[in-house]
């Protein structure tokens, strides 16, 4: 290997022209060997910019690709650049589609991608989709086209049914993961689970918690028994406690468990058996499910609680006392998701029992019911912050908040990377002082220098956005609703947040001046969403004209006047305007 020793004295950085005429410092095989060790795509992107040789070496060794916006690139372009892909993550619709702001049949259909992949990546193993439209035919096509297919994850997708899952279960002989979450899918029954062949034993991850139809328990039990490597099992609420006990006895190696219904009346013997089953699961670190859990049955979990790291109680409507009793057994919790039925008192228990907590999400039990006035308040949040100094991720739905409380919270927990506060009533001020909530978010951005993601709410003037633009230098994602006073607000954000990648805005008084102030910024961002703002069609047309590498798409509401641009979606793309846009999506 003389060629290597000769060339090592050249540093790679000396090769500064992309069309380098002298050979790279390393032979291709060495460079590729080194680069194949890089796993983070951010590193790979940096590497590919060094020079043409490195670009090529990187593209030949990349096996995983992450596409945050399916319309930013085309499957053909991906296929041309990366010949050896085995794993793909694709995200489609704008996030506000989760909240019904995007009409049906908007797009993001996986089929055109699958067709290309089938041709170019016959050895594709892993597909993770979020907010894509996936038909049963696509799932059948997937099952038929990729013999080595191993992992399918569908989150917030729509367009398919349990029939498509049948195809996956029947034909994917090497399946390791089937993860179905929060999808708008049709549930025609639990028969899909029985489609796994009797000799199929490779499953490591199975999540069907969001499916309502009952599966055949015997088939499930046999499946769990054969799959000795099963690590993650999330069943749906059709599975009773008695059945759960049998599953746990078959799979004591489980690391993540989503239980079924937790409501069954248990005899003392059944209780004891379940406790024993839980204490057998030495590797269990995550528990979810727990539908209808009550104070009688929760104690069967206690044997497993000491090693729990993530407790997802989003489906268990617990009250404060029940939560407090449970958390007293969970000192090692890092992540906790609850409903606001636990109230402030429950959150006090969080603060006192879980000092290692890093993530807290509090969801509203009855978000759309105007009769419900209770839930959690600023006191609960403050109580958590006092006890859980390592908090870095919070999602908090509440019906009242104060500036002072938020200031205290971030003083206690300055390491926030994700701060998502949702005061449920739009435009609601500080409930004690009646002032806008500007100072609250000002405190957040001034104190939390590592902040990457922020969602604001409450009564907010432009001052909030001045603060964000001035201080939130690491901010990547910002969500804004019913806030701001004028264009200036949005301009401050676009001008100040140098790392901004995703900006989603609804119902704010930002108009064309604001939109156009970000002219050059949008190319460095993944996307911008603005709905129910003051942007007009002409403003959007101007943006589209000035910035050819941006797709500027407008969707109009039925009752709006001609000049108003009701929903605007702007994103950078190397694939040009969409060719599959439905009639209600206008590309300008």
């Amino acid at each position, binding site marked *: 290997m003389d060629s290597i020793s000769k060339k090592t004295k050249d540093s790679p950085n000396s090769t500064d022209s992309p069309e380098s005429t002298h050979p790279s410092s390393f032979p291709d095989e060495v460079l590729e060997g080194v680069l194949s060790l890089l796993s983070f795509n951010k590193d790979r992107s940096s590497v590919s910019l060094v020079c043409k040789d490195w670009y090529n070496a990187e593209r030949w060794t990349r096996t995983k690709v992450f596409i945050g916006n399916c319309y930013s690139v085309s499957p053909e372009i991906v296929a041309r650049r990366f010949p050896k892909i085995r794993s793909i993550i694709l995200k489609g619709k704008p996030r506000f589609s*989760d909240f019904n702001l995007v009409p049906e049949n908007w797009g993001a259909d996986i089929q055109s991608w699958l067709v290309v992949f089938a041709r170019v990546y016959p050895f594709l193993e892993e597909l993770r989709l979020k907010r894509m439209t996936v038909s049963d035919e696509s799932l059948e096509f997937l099952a038929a086209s990729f013999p080595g297919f191993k992992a399918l994850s569908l989150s917030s997708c729509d367009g398919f049914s349990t029939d498509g899952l049948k195809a996956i279960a029947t034909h994917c002989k090497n399946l390791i993961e089937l993860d179905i979450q929060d999808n708008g899918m049709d549930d025609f029954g639990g028969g899909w689970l029985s489609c796994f062949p009797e000799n199929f034993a490779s499953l490591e991850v199975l999540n069907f918690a969001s499916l309502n139809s009952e599966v055949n328990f015997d088939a499930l039990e046999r499946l769990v028994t054969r799959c000795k490597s099963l690590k993650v099992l999330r069943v749906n609420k059709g599975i009773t406690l008695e059945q759960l006990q049998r599953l746990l006895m078959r799979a004591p190696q489980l690391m993540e468990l989503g239980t079924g219904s937790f409501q069954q009346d248990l005899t003392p013997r059944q209780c004891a058996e379940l406790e024993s089953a839980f204490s057998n699961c030495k590797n269990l670190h995550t528990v979810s499910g727990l539908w209808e859990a009550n104070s009688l049955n929760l104690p069967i979990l206690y044997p497993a609680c000491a090693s729990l790291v993530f407790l997802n109680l989003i489906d268990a409507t617990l009250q404060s006392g029940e939560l407090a009793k449970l958390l007293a057994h969970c000192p090692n919790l890092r992540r906790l998701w609850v409903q606001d039925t636990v109230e402030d008192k429950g959150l006090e228990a969080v603060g006192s029992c879980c000092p290692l907590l890093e993530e807290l999400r509090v969801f509203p039990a009855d978000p759309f019911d105007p009769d419900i006035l209770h839930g959690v308040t600023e006191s609960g949040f403050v109580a958590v912050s006092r006890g859980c100094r390592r908090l870095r991720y919070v999602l908090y739905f509440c019906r009242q908040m104060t500036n002072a409380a938020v200031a205290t919270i971030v003083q206690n927990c300055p390491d926030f990377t994700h701060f998502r506060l949702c005061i449920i009533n739009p435009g609601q001020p500080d409930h004690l002082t009646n002032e806008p909530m500007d100072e609250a978010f000002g405190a957040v951005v001034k104190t939390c220098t590592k902040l990457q993601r922020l969602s604001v709410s409450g009564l907010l003037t432009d001052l909030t956005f001045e603060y964000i633009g001035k201080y939130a230098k690491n901010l990547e994602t910002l969500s804004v609703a019913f806030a701001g006073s004028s264009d200036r607000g949005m301009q401050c954000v676009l001008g100040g947040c140098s790392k901004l990648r995703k900006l989603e805005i609804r119902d704010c008084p930002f108009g064309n001046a604001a939109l156009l102030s970000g002219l050059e910024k949008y190319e460095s961002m993944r996307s911008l969403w603005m709905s129910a703002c003051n942007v007009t069609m002409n403003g959007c047309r101007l943006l589209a004209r000035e910035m050819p590498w941006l797709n500027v798409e407008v969707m109009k509401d039925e009752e709006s006047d001609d000049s108003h641009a009701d929903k605007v979606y702007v994103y950078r793309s190397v694939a040009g305007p969409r060719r599959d846009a439905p009639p209600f999506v206008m590309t300008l």
Partner: protein
Amino acid sequence: MEMERPVNLENELNLKATELRLGLPGNDDQPEKQYSSRSIRSINKRFSSEMYTESDAQKGDHQDPSPATKAQVVGWPPVRSYRRNVLQPKKAEADGAGMYVKVSMDGAPYLRKIDLKVYQSYSELLNALEDMFKCTIGVYSEREGYNGSDYAPTYEDKDGDWMLVGDVPWEMFMTSCKRLRIMKGSEAKGLGCL
């Protein structure tokens, strides 16, 4: 670039004058026309999107929206529609039974929701209610209702009438019950004696 015509508030005053809202007098609220009408149906937001002044703060207007005029905003709060389907009873169904019903108890600050489909009989339902609200409901008798117990379970039927739980066969109850209310025994006496 097209300049927006300044919105003429005067034309809107007739509607605005009779609209129930909690905005401070003199507040220059954005007129609804500038927002997508699908986005905000009957908005009652205290939304000062123009200059918010110090004097406004000092007026100390306390935010307390009455439920009747609470905003029905599309896609707000930002909770996934998947979860919405799980939480909401199906109000659109003609038989009105969408099995999740609200349960209130006199004196309790918080309502609960239960799924009637989970129960096979009155005794199961009553046991569950007793457990959920930590109260005693006692035993039903056709003649005396729940006389003698601290609480009596009542329900609102399809016709809007408040009925004592237990009078009709279970299946009939399941299909006609719209919501439950656990009344204090003293108040329920009237129902039991009919």
